[in-house]
């Protein structure tokens, strides 16, 4: 591994962390789309800043782009408040308009500068280590590393300073307001940080990768935990992991680095989406299957409770009467036996005392919908959870 390769992975990892922090809050606030909007609508800010300074690395670009980012949010909310359209429609109205202003500005005035839409959207991570920052003759590392490092430092400082406020205003706006800090200020603060991060990263990794790094790791972490601190940590971990594994995927395929990182983000999300312990697709499928069996069990127990006649409780009769397939009947029977709810004597099934109380409680619950009585059953049965 040579120094350029290390620097690329370092830049990618720093971008991943810097994106994961605002990304987590955006995902929790159900505002993921706004990061896509910001990443596009900052273009006019960048173009105007470039016209003034003639330097793609000037801090003025970041300031102006952050400003257009905030303007985007203000416009989106203004349109949304009219009540005529929904939030996603408002986003869809605002960012293409701002983005196209940027495109027109470039086409009209910037034909002879090296600023094209393509570079803004895709970036060129592979070339980042060759643009060095030289201070009084000494090479102190790639420029993008410094830019993103400073942004990350600011983001982390803000996160630590305003963690409580961010947390409360994300989960309970009313409470935040009554505690004396304005959710609006936190909201715009978060939007400003998102804009600044997007601008700082766009030159190195491009807007598409920024959006991917903001949303995908946070969404993946969201599937695994309900704790905010854990979610932040997991989002950062997934971001860094995708950045580095994506880099080596690119190495293996000799392909675009940003493209490979985005692919890894997608693959990791897919894996977690399928295999996450609680919210994963497979876990949900298993739970639904269990719930179906439990509904059958309840029907079966009810039948037993309602019939004292021996012939109604014969194993063979049950199969015919409730009309279950053999396999299902067997599963239900075994489940009931395992929980000591029934006893089988000479092929005659009877309820035990435990089975009898369980059935009464369950029926009560279904009728009254109060769950105080079944607290102790929740651990054994999915049916009564949530």
């Amino acid at each position: 591994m040579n120094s350029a390769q290390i620097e690329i992975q370092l830049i990618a990892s720093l971008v991943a962390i810097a994106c994961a922090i605002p990304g987590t809050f955006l995902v929790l606030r159900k505002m993921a789309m706004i990061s896509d909007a910001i990443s596009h609508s900052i273009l006019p800010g960048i173009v105007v800043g470039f016209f003034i300074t003639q330097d793609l690395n000037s801090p003025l670009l970041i300031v102006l782009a952050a400003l257009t980012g905030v303007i985007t949010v203000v416009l989106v909310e203004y349109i949304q408040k009219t009540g005529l359209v929904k939030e996603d429609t408002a986003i869809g109205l605002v960012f293409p308009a701002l983005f196209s202003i940027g495109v027109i500005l470039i086409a009209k005035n910037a034909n002879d500068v090296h600023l094209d839409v393509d570079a803004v959207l895709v970036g060129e991570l592979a070339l980042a280590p060759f643009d060095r920052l030289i201070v009084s003759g000494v090479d102190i590392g790639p420029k993008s590393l410094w830019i993103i490092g400073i942004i990350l430092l600011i983001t982390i400082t803000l996160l630590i300073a305003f963690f409580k406020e961010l947390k409360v205003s994300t989960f309970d706006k009313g409470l935040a307001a009554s505690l004396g800090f304005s959710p609006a200020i936190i909201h715009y603060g978060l939007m400003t940080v998102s804009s600044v991060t997007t601008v700082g990263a766009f030159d190195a990794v491009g807007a598409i990768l920024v959006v991917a790094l903001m949303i995908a790791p946070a969404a993946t972490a969201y599937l695994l935990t309900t704790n905010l601190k854990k979610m932040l940590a997991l989002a950062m971990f997934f971001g860094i992991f995708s950045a580095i594994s994506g880099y080596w995927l690119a190495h293996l395929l000799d392909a675009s680095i940003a493209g490979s990182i985005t692919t890894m983000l997608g693959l990791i999300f897919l894996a977690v989406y399928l295999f996450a312990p609680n919210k994963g697709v497979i876990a949900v499928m298993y739970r639904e299957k269990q719930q179906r069996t439990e509904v059958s069990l309840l029907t079966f127990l009810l039948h037993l409770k309602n019939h004292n006649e021996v012939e109604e409780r014969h194993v063979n009769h049950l199969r015919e009467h409730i009309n279950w397939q053999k396999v299902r009947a067997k599963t239900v029977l075994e489940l009931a036996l395992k929980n000591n709810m029934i006893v089988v004597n000479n092929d005659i099934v009877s309820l035990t005392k435990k089975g009898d109380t369980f059935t009464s409680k369950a029926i009560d619950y279904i009728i009254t919908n109060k769950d105080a009585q079944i607290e102790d059953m929740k651990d054994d049965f999915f049916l009564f959870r949530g």
Partner: protein
Amino acid sequence: MKKLLFILLVYATLSSCNTNKKENGKLNVVTTTTMITDLVKNIGKDSININGLMGSGVDPHLYKASEGDVTKLVNADVIFYNGLHLEGKLVEVFEKMGSSTKTPIALGEEIDKSTLIGSDYFASNYDPHVWFNIEYFKQFTKKVTAVLIEKDAKNAKYYKANETEYLAKLNTLQKTITAKIETLPKDKRILVTAHDAFNYFGKNYGFEVVGLQGLSTATEAGVKDVQNLANFIIEKQLKAVFVESSVPKRTIEALQKAVNAKGHDVQIGGTLYSDALGSAGTTEGTYIGMFEYNVNTIVNALK
């Protein structure tokens, strides 16, 4: 922050056991377009390591660096590129490299600017497709030789001999091409291609050159451009138009359909190599082979 420190630590360990090695003391030369790669191969032959960034069929206007290119650039001692903003963002990167230990050489900057064709699109205001003028390519050859000699003096004689040999080949090429083009009547010398890559070719050999997409392949052809060009083709009674290996065929095919719809039969005369050479190992994979192939294709189709 702990995580960051950890990553740094891992990197430090990994990198310490895996340092760069200069292969057998040979000069590491990185080239951009296939034309320049071929040229440098002819001068340096096996006494230098040549790493071309762009493969055959790659459009230099739209080139994206891959992971492997990073290592090539890191290990480069000398970088030869076309410049005049042909290679997009790469040019920008090379220009900033001036202060490092690498020597980036923009071959296009060697040419006397007053002889270049101007353009509104490119930042430098010059058409960068200079390799279609063999005289310019000879200047490239001389510059490459001079730089190689400066960097690797012990092989100076070898490079000089290769230069003489290659310049002789280019002179022969100039003669064969001129002779071939002479067989085509002057009024039939109209070249319609996908983008404006052949202006220098046209200027030298008396062709009127019309490109559908303008100088950069990044811009798209509009409906009006296609219609105007179709009318032009009918007016001039052209027999053939040409596709380019590094530009998608569909715009030229649209043009052909537009012309056919107006009742004039125009053929696709063949594929020309404009911004990139053919696959390595084939005749069209060398600059000389490519030039001969292009001229034969053009002359045979328009005759």
